[in-house]
């Protein structure tokens, strides 16, 4: 696309005092039920089943998906987090076989995790067999998969896996990564947005403040947890 001209923006900023700003804030009405919805959405998407049930009772807020499905999803996630990948695969196929069918990358990552667990438990022969039979064919179809496969198999070459270049694969965070990917796929398949809205809104707040900084001086909120208004920077 051809761009013609860029004009510099004017540099004088509007100054808003703390008093004026607090008045503007007080005119913004946030509905309680909207906040309740936001919290419920968070509890549900992050998988806090019991908390969601209690919140439903205590606040009367309806969860946006069937709480029963959360339990199933959490069971799958937990299985991966504990390294029981085969179990997780079985469970997710019980839930909905299409999830893995339509998600080759996810399926590859789950198989990769299985391989990692075999290597972790020292079952070298089984690991090699598994890699050759299950993962190598996938690697042939897809270059990125092949690279991942090679990285994973490289684990076998090191005795001191904690300090080797691919040691991070054995880290808990790798399990978390796989678990999150699976969690997101299940949520998407249930037509539920995979991300809770609260973090997006918080990021939007930071973004909006950064944008407004260009044109005005006003009290910011820098500490999100305590939500305290700072003095405007002149």
């Amino acid at each position: 696309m051809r761009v013609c001209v860029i004009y510099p923006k004017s540099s004088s900023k509007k100054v808003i005092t703390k008093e004026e700003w607090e008045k503007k804030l007080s005119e913004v009405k946030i509905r309680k039920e909207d906040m309740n919805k936001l919290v419920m959405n968070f509890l549900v998407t992050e998988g806090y089943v019991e908390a969601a049930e209690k919140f439903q009772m205590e606040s009367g807020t309806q969860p946006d998906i069937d709480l029963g499905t959360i339990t199933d999803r959490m069971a799958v996630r937990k299985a991966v987090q504990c390294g029981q990948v085969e179990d997780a695969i079985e469970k997710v196929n019980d839930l909905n076989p299409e999830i893995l069918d339509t998600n080759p990358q996810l399926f590859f990552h789950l198989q990769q995790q299985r391989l990692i667990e075999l290597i972790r438990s020292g079952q070298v022969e089984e690991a090699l067999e598994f890699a050759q039979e299950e993962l190598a064919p996938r690697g042939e179809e897809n270059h990125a998969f092949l690279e991942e496969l090679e990285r994973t198999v490289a684990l076998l070459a090191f005795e001191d896996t904690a300090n080797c270049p691919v040691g991070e694969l054995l880290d808990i965070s790798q399990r978390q990564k796989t678990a999150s990917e699976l969690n997101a796929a299940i949520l998407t398949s249930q037509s539920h947005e995979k991300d809770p809205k609260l973090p997006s809104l918080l990021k939007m707040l930071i973004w909006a403040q950064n944008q407004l900084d260009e044109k005005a001086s006003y009290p910011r909120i820098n500490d999100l947890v305590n939500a305290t208004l700072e003095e405007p920077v002149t």
Partner: protein
Amino acid sequence: MQRRVGGGGDGEMEEEEEEEEAPTHLNTSTCGHFLVISTDKLCAKYTGEGLHGNDVGAIQGNRPAPCRRLLYYFEMTVKDRGFKGCTTIGFTDDHFRNSRQPGWEPNTYGYHGDDGKLYHGQGKADSFGPTFSTGDTVGAGINYGAQEIFFTKNGKLVGGTFNDVKTPLYPTIGLHSPNEKVEVNFGQRPFAYDVEAQLKKERERRRKAVENVPLSPNVNHSIVRSYLLHFGYHDTLAAFDAANGGSFPPMLFTPHEYGNGTLDNDMFALDQRKMLRRLVRDGNIDGVFAKLREWYPQQLQQQQEHCSNIIFLLHCQKFIELVKLGMLEAAVTYARTELAPFFGSSPDQDLHLQDCLALLAYERPHETPMAYLLHFGYSELVADAINAFVLSTNPSLPASGKSPQSGLEKLLQQLTACLAEKRVLNGGQGEVFSLHRILQGGKEGGW
């Protein structure tokens, strides 16, 4: 405590901004002598001679481009290039001169068919894109999100100019040689250019910009936790903490123990608030009165003197509970003794009283506009008011007279205020932010 007048509760508090109307046809009242316009006001034909710089036939749309959105776009098809193909598409402002091409005057923009250049009020033009002629469809748009004016030809983007877009801008076309004829499209027909795709791209660009903002993962948990604490949702909090592997310490009734941080303030009198919320939920308003008198006799006295909310709300709620149980005679008696004294002290309270009393008039109150009073959501609000009352008795709070707010509410207010201020400073451009619509799942709760 928000007052609901007559038509009741769930959702009529939305302040609908006035619908912005878009241009629909050419504005014949400001066009000049050198054009003849069709009866449907969508076609223009040049009738001048095209001899000099002041016999252009230019015409604007009947309204300015709406700006409470991310994009505005319209198109023009050249039916006949006439002698010299000087047809132009672009935007002009309120100082429109109908004998000058869009782009020649300051704060106007024009993509000219004869030389393919972009004029934007600077005198000389920049070489820009292809020329266009008979049979071509060109388009002009404003991208408020990116602050740019852009042009298309036959469904393909040609380019644009970045600028501080100063609204209002009117879609404008110009003709300048004999026999030139064009037809405009303000959306009554599908466009040649895929504007929807561009709109999607713009939304995606903003979404990505926001997603890339770094946010510490613990922040969400802290905010949710502090919300649950603030409103006294004790059981939820216990379950939340348990799931997070933390232990939930039981709180004792010692209001003077807590420090000044927001989290400490949120923990104030948690047991009391939990109990009061449960009593309201169970419809046991007498229980609420008893506990309040036991724990906060002084503050309650102050409330009474200011004829204030809590006492009033609780009496109304007791009345409502009696109605729910079908004990209408008891409800009437209660109204006579406890509600009647409140009449006349405040117009808001009077309206609320009317709504409550109206419940008596119907056999099936659940099917009337007053039904919202009988829903759980309404008793939630009463519980929230009591919760706020108890929080306000916290001695370590500064004496500002404002009722304490949850952190989440303050953050959402800040977000709304910042986006609103940004729009104001941008001349009112851009979509109006609506938290409510975002939560309903709309993609256009916009920002």
